[in-house]
């Protein structure tokens, strides 16, 4: 490589900083540092004349490494990076420091100390800059296609968006029919219109307007040419990389040809097998060949293979006028290549029979919300009449119990968030249809946080629905009359009530769909402790997962109502489009690289990489070596911080660069206090240091800051090296343990720090000299305080005498 020629650009912020920092002394110092060939001082370098000076110096070939000390760091760093890239210098050859917030501001009371620290900071940046190397841009091909798993409203809406955008979309649903919960719920609050209503696709050309929405079976979305719908199907394997996943789907047979069935219903008349209809709360039966309701998709009957007698019967085969029934269909495996995967598997009701005192499953007149919804639905088993399942007579007195399994430490500690509204909806629907019904809702708290929701609740009260604050202790059954009694303490009036009921409706907790965990494992994403899919960042990236190209939508992440589900669905679709729309994935090679000669195949790094970017490969038919996928690697360095052979380097933060900077920072003190090295992650840790400076919080100038991508990159030897380089104390500043931008970096390094403290003690070195802090941006005060306290602690401990001896 060419000889390094470092240009140093020193901004004084228009004399802002000259009152504190002696710029003449600093400039003179910098000029003498080996490798520095060009020094410019100005009021700013991120725009105007200052930036031009830098660009010219690069264009004229005077400098090939740039060190910038600016006073407006966050904004200017990007501008300068873009400008030097345009001038022909790879922007990874720039090193950037902030003499204002990291030096002048916090040390304004000790100007001469601040000046010495500025020299050390510049020296550190220069020494690091000398070792920088350019990083390439990488391009990976990406397919403009998606697989959507789950055919509820989330999955359908996402599929429509993506298909409308022109992606090839496959929507797979494990059940024989689409719709998910919406197909069972009948009506949806707060508008009380049909639950099974979705936004029409733009390909529904004849009737589309920008407000167009229709029920699933009329919407025309099933006719979008680039949307392939597979029901009765499950994902069994996922391989490949973001932008190019290879998915295997297993399709269980329907036994009825979708292209031939004409919904004549002749088959159900002849089918001899009759079983309880699960879709309809077992309040009626269905045949082995059946359809849920006429308005479903696909509009094709299906045979339940677990009960059908097949060729011992074959009556439906004979009667079918279009020869649509094929009893010899076999399950088949379909493979497809897709650029992205959207998981929209929804949720389901918790099994309330676990709560013995409510006797669900034992007393037929104790039902759940979903079962009640089937009764209220005109297409349901009772034609819209709410009955007592024990005798199928109308139920007049109804008691509803909220939080069944939810907000209960024994079962699900969380609030399922939609069941208050569901119960209120059911109560008002029943009350409107049967004004003299007597409905009581027993609740702990009523949660109606959405728009219009509180109004909905008020309306219910006005209609005469009674609300009792209390969690019922038991449901009893009068053995003679068969009536139910609900025991509850009314907490507001402090009295025990025995509520008589024809029907008790439970509002069970909502839990993840069956098989969610398995699906997560197949795809390689995570679920939370509660079993729902884990979002990449709950606040900012709620529909992304840590795997690029895999998104989550709707109830799969947590119970949601339909409006929130729709928001999610559109967001997930947008994310997939953003990721794939150019047909390629472009990224900087800011990745880890493993030196095969030194990798000892210990297989630690594949386990600690939070992004599954490392795999083992056999070389020359003998040794296994670890290998990083440039596509998957996020560049955190956690693998570097793990590798016991030091076989891994981060291209944008190499060990030699860190060492050089560390030594330089520790080579100049200029204060009477013990030197402290603060190693900060470039995310919240460094931001906390910024914010302490911005708020002009003071801490002593003996504290020196070094930035790394994530504290996860740090190894125990770096702490020891810092002491050897002259640090009397070391602070490691990372993100909050569960707020780490790279998932596990803070957590892993916290353990390294703890172990190092134990080790230091054995070495006779006070463990208090090393400290790990976890901060967010706004905790600049915490940083300043910790820096101050570390300094005071070290002053008490006295100087650290170590190393070698004779």
């Amino acid at each position: 490589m060419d000889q390094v020629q470092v240009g140093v650009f020193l901004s004084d912020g228009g004399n802002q900083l000259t009152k504190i920092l002696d710029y003449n002394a600093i400039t003179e110092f910098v000029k003498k540092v080996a490798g520095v060939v060009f020094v410019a001082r100005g009021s700013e370098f991120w725009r105007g004349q200052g930036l031009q000076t830098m660009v010219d110096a690069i264009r004229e070939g005077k400098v090939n490494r740039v060190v910038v000390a600016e006073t407006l760091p966050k904004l200017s760093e990007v501008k300068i990076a873009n400008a030097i890239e345009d001038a022909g210098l790879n922007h990874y050859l720039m090193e950037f420091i902030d003499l204002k917030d990291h030096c002048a501001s916090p040390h304004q009371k000790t100007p001469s100390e601040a000046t010495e620290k500025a020299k050390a900071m510049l020296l550190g940046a220069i020494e690091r800059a000398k070792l920088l190397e350019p990083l390439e841009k990488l391009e990976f091909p990406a397919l403009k296609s998606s697989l959507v798993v789950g055919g509820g409203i989330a999955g359908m809406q996402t599929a429509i968006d993506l298909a409308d955008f022109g992606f090839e979309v496959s929507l797979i649903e494990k059940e024989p029919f689409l719709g998910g919960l919406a197909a069972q719920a009948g009506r949806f609050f707060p508008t009380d219109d049909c639950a099974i209503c979705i936004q029409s696709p733009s390909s529904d050309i004849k009737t589309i307007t920008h407000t167009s929405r229709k029920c699933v079976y009329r919407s025309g979305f099933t006719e979008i040419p680039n949307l392939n719908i597979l029901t009765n199907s499950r994902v069994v394997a996922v391989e490949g990389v973001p932008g190019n996943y290879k998915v295997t789907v297993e399709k269980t047979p329907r036994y009825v040809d979708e292209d031939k069935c004409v919904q004549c219903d002749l088959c159900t008349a002849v089918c001899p097998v009759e079983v309880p209809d699960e879709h309809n709360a077992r309040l009626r039966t269905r045949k082995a060949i059946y359809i849920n309701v006429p308005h479903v998709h696909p509009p094709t009957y299906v045979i339940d293979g677990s009960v059908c007698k097949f060729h011992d019967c074959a009556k439906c085969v004979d009667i079918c006028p279009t020869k649509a029934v094929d009893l010899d269909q076999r399950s088949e495996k379909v493979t497809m290549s897709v650029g992205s995967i959207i998981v929209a598997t929804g949720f389901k009701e918790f099994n309330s029979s676990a709560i013995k005192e409510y006797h669900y499953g034992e007393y037929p007149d104790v039902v759940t919300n979903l079962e009640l919804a089937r009764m209220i639905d005109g297409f349901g088993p009772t034609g819209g009449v709410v009955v007592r399942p024990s005798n199928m007579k109308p139920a007049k007195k109804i008691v509803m119990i909220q939080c069944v399994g939810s907000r209960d430490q024994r079962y699900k500690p969380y609030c399922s968030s939609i069941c208050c509204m569901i119960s209120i909806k059911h109560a008002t629907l029943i009350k409107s249809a049967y004004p003299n019904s007597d409905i009581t809702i027993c609740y702990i708290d009523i949660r109606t946080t959405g728009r219009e929701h509180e109004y909905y609740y008020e309306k219910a009260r006005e209609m005469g629905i009674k609300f009792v604050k209390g969690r019922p202790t038991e449901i009893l059954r009068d053995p003679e009359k068969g009536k139910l009694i609900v025991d509850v303490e009314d907490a507001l009036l402090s009295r025990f009530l025995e509520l008589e009921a024809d029907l008790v409706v439970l509002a069970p907790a909502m839990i993840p769909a069956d098989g969610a965990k398995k699906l997560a494992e197949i795809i390689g994403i995570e679920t939370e402790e509660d079993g729902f899919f884990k979002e990449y960042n709950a606040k900012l990236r709620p529909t992304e997962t840590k795997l690029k190209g895999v998104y989550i939508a709707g109830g799969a992440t947590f119970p949601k109502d339909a409006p929130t589900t729709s928001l999610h669905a559109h967001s997930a679709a947008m994310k997939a489009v953003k990721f794939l729309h150019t047909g390629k994935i472009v990224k900087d090679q800011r990745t880890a690289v493993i030196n095969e000669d030194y990798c000892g195949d210990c297989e630690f790094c594949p386990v600690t990489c939070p992004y599954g970017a490392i795999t083992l490969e056999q070389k020359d038919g003998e040794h296994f070596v670890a290998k990083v996928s440039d596509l998957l690697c996020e560049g955190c360095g956690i693998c570097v911080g793990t590798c016991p052979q030091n076989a891994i380097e981060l291209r944008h933060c190499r060990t030699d660069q860190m060492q050089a900077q560390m030594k330089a920072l520790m080579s100049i003190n200029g204060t009477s206090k013990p030197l402290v090295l603060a190693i900060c992650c470039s995310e919240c840790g460094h931001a906390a240091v910024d914010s302490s400076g911005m708020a002009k919080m003071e801490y002593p100038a003996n504290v020196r800051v070094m930035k790394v991508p994530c504290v996860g990159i740090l190894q125990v030897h770096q702490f020891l090296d810092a002491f050897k380089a002259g640090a009397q104390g070391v602070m490691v500043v990372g993100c909050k343990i569960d707020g780490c931008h790279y998932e596990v970096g803070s957590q892993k390094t916290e353990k390294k720090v703890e172990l190092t403290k134990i080790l230091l003690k054995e070495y006779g070195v006070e463990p208090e000299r090393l400290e790990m802090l976890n901060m967010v941006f706004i905790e600049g005060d915490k940083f300043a305080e910790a820096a101050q306290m570390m300094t005071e602690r070290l002053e008490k401990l006295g100087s650290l005498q170590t190393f070698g001896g004779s």
Partner: protein
Amino acid sequence: MEKEKLKIAFYWAASCGGCEIAVLDINEKILDVVAAADIVFWPVALDFKYKDVEAMPDKSIDACFFNGAIRTEENEHIAKLLRRKSKILVAFGSCACDGCVVGLANLWDRETVFERAYSETPSTNNPEGTTPKTLLEVKEGKLKLPEFYDTVKTLSQTVDVDYFISGCPPPIPCIIQTFQAILTNNLPPKGSSFLPNKSICDECPREKKDKQLSEIKRIYEIDDDFKTCLLDQGVICMGPATRAGCGAQCPNVNMPCTGCNGPGPRVTDQGAAALSAIASIATNPEVINQVVDPIGTFYKYSLANSILRRKVMKK
């Protein structure tokens, strides 16, 4: 004309003597060595005096294999002497390379070592409390004895070293390779080690699993299946942080690697490398507290060559 035979030397400083035996463990290959080289100095086997070495011209020894750490003034003196007299100086064995068990004395200093060795141990009978002195008056005159240092050093902390071959003792195939390289003048770049670049795990036949360390166990606490990686069974194994060469002898016979080959080629501190890796796979904070005797476990062979090198003694 017959080629002139090479001149080689062996020396032991602060060591157990195992390295000397290892030289003989190359069995019949020793005959090739003797055929190609003259042994000009080997205190453990042949009768030479220091003055014989002093009399040799500088750089007249072609290769010197130096085992043992630098514990005393005598060790240092001879290390310097042999350096001067040898073209190639090889740090032979863990003591010379990394300080080895001898180096664990760096957790103490001269005073505390003497205290322990010359008065405290149950087998000591020393009513006068005699400890080694550097100067002794005897009737023939003043006797000067070599000083016992506070801190054990490695050979390369004392003199310039050309090649390294660590291990306690070095693995036999690597010793053979070393001799062959020197006898055939087929030498790697200065500073190289004659051990492979990989780690023990590379040579270990045990099957690696998911590496989720939730509890640290001692070897007697597990029901070893003789197949699964010991770390995957919860036992601390130094294999991942230890340079290959021995063919994973210990894990092969159901004992965890304790690290005698020293750190990998890019690692400066073996214990720190092991600690980083172990901390990274610990699934809960309790694991950290289960680490007992971190220096004895992770620095058994490399304390003297570690970044901090010795314990800070509070006076």
